[in-house]
């Protein structure tokens, strides 16, 4: 029997993995964006779960909005990455250390 807690645990796990993904990757920045997508996915799943179990459609409406905003954000993020690539000719994260103190 799959109860709500199973779903919630899954969603939490996915979230944690995506959070780890943000700072594990040292290869290129696209993985960062992908981890962000994953994070958003886990949050969306969470909303769906709660919407389903509380019989309220508001959760799904919110997921709708989140989807739209996430798409817009990844588009802009990729545009930034492209311009970064133009300057640096590489997407190595080690090169992006201008904030070094």
């Amino acid at each position: 029997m799959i109860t709500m807690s199973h779903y919630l645990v899954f969603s939490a796990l996915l979230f944690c993995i995506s959070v780890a993904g943000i700072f594990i990757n040292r290869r290129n920045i696209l993985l960062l964006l992908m981890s962000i997508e994953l994070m958003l996915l886990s949050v969306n799943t969470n909303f769906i779960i709660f919407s389903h179990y509380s019989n309220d459609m508001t959760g799904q409406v919110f997921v709708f909005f989140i989807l739209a905003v996430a798409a817009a954000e990844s588009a802009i993020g990729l545009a930034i990455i492209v311009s970064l690539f133009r300057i640096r000719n590489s997407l190595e994260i080690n090169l992006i250390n201008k904030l070094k103190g």
Partner: protein
Amino acid sequence: MESLLLSIPILLILSSIITGFSSKLLNNFYSGIISTSLVTLSFIFSIIICFNIYSSDNLTLYENFYSWISVSNFNIGIGYLIDKYSAAMLVVVLLISSVVHLYSMSYMEKEKEYKRFFSYIALFTFSMILLVISNNLIQLFIGWEGVGLVSYLLIGFFYKKRSAIHANLKAFLINRIGDMFFILGIAMIYTAFDSFDYRTIFLNINELDLDNLKTYFGLSYIDLSCLLLFIGAMAKSAQIPLHIWLPDSMEGPTPISALIHAATMVTAGIFMVGRLSPVYEMCYITTNIILIIGASTALFIGLIAIFENDIKKVIAYSTISQLGYMVSALGINAYTISFFHLYTHAFFKALLFLCAGSVIMSLHHNQDILKMGGLKSKLPITYICFLIGTLSIIGFPLTSGFFSKDLILEVMLYKDSTISFVAYVMLILGALVTTIYSLRLLFIVFYGDYRGDNANSVKEQSLIILIPLIILALLSLFSGYSIKIFIDMPIFMWSPSEIKYQGLLPFITHGIFSPATLSLLIGFYISIKLYKEKTDFKFLKFFLFEKSVAAIKSKYKFDELFLYLSLFMKKSSLYFSNKMDIALIDGLIVNGIPKRINILSTYLRTISSGYLYHYAFLIVLSLVIIFAVILVRVL
């Protein structure tokens, strides 16, 4: 009378200022005249005061005329206390000072720094007067320091000579050591009596609650404070072991050796102990210590003089030896007798020094006695004065030295303890040694053939130099006859105990038939044989004798001891400074803390690495920690 008394220091300081600050206005001759006349005037005033005091019965002048600090019980001021003791001391100091002023008018004639010299000796006399007339311990100390300072200035008078600078520093530093203990002694007395004033101290001596005061190392409170004061006197009056500065102080010009290191400054210690005689009467162990120190100084330093070859150094060692006599007299509580010896010694020692100065001048600044000889015919007046001085110092009957020295030896037997008997024996041997070295000096310098160069240019000095010699010679001969005054002299609240003195003639006959005369005769015999007729004794080649002679010639290595001690202090303080100050405080705290902070910040700096994922990591980390804290509290 008070005005006469107050004008003495004023005249002296005036003389010092005039000669010191009148650069080209006054030429040397006039400044010398002014200086000498002012000092002679002060001397006349002191004679008048002394006469007044001695003709009246127990007159004591006492006044505080300037109060410097006055805070409840703590009163420091300038004042005077003149009784028979300090009046006599005043006369002695001013007499020697005026004689030396007159002498240096001619002696320092060729010096460019003539006026500086006169300024200094006037300043010295001023400080000494301040010391003598004082009525409290602090003024005594001020005068004490003042004479030490001027002694420093005068020993290093020829400041371009390296040895003079070493000598004056040595004198000052040894004095300083003594002063350190002196101040401790003053502090202890103040704590006990709550006042620096002599009168208050002496009046409260008997009511002192000795049970409430602590004892230290087996000495009672008063014992310890008197001992500390005496250590200050030891440094000033050149007793063992703080005597090493006096021979080196012969670097200064001869007049000051006569004034300071024979007659006045070195006697300040003796004067001080006599002044505080009511307090010293309460001591038991300290007086024995004083006795031993005095007797050993008298004997052992005298031995050094036998082997010295510099005329002034021989006389310097003889000064230390005679000071040992005075100190031993203090050690048996015979204060006025020691003062009597101080009085006669001032005359014949100053005489000896001034004669030596005349000899040195005549021989064009040659001080080595091995290059002198046969001056009896060349410098007759100097020879006669020197002879009188030598006869005084060895205690030849009817000279002043005979009276004072024999009196000391007599009184030494009054106390019935072993220590005083041992001291008595040491002093008798000291008299023997005194005879030997004094006659050695006489014979080598004035008898025989002239061993120096320029035999024809050796002639007698001018009259201005000879008059002081003659004055002092007369005083050395006849000042001993005032012995009665000194036997009966009271020192403020101390009265002398019974001394068996029946009169002048019985004293003379008694003195002639005492062991002192025996040592005199033996000494005469030995010195005539050794130095006049230059015979060779077999036992002088003895191994043991030569070893001891070598020990004496090295001056018992006191200089090396002090050098070693100071080096040790330097090394140990360096060690402590390195370990504590540099390593511990600087290394750990002053420099160490910034260094640690630096290291820490170097580590902390790596946090802002510039890499995005590091920052993200830190954000997540802090989030996790915050949530953990909240969860633990809530759940």
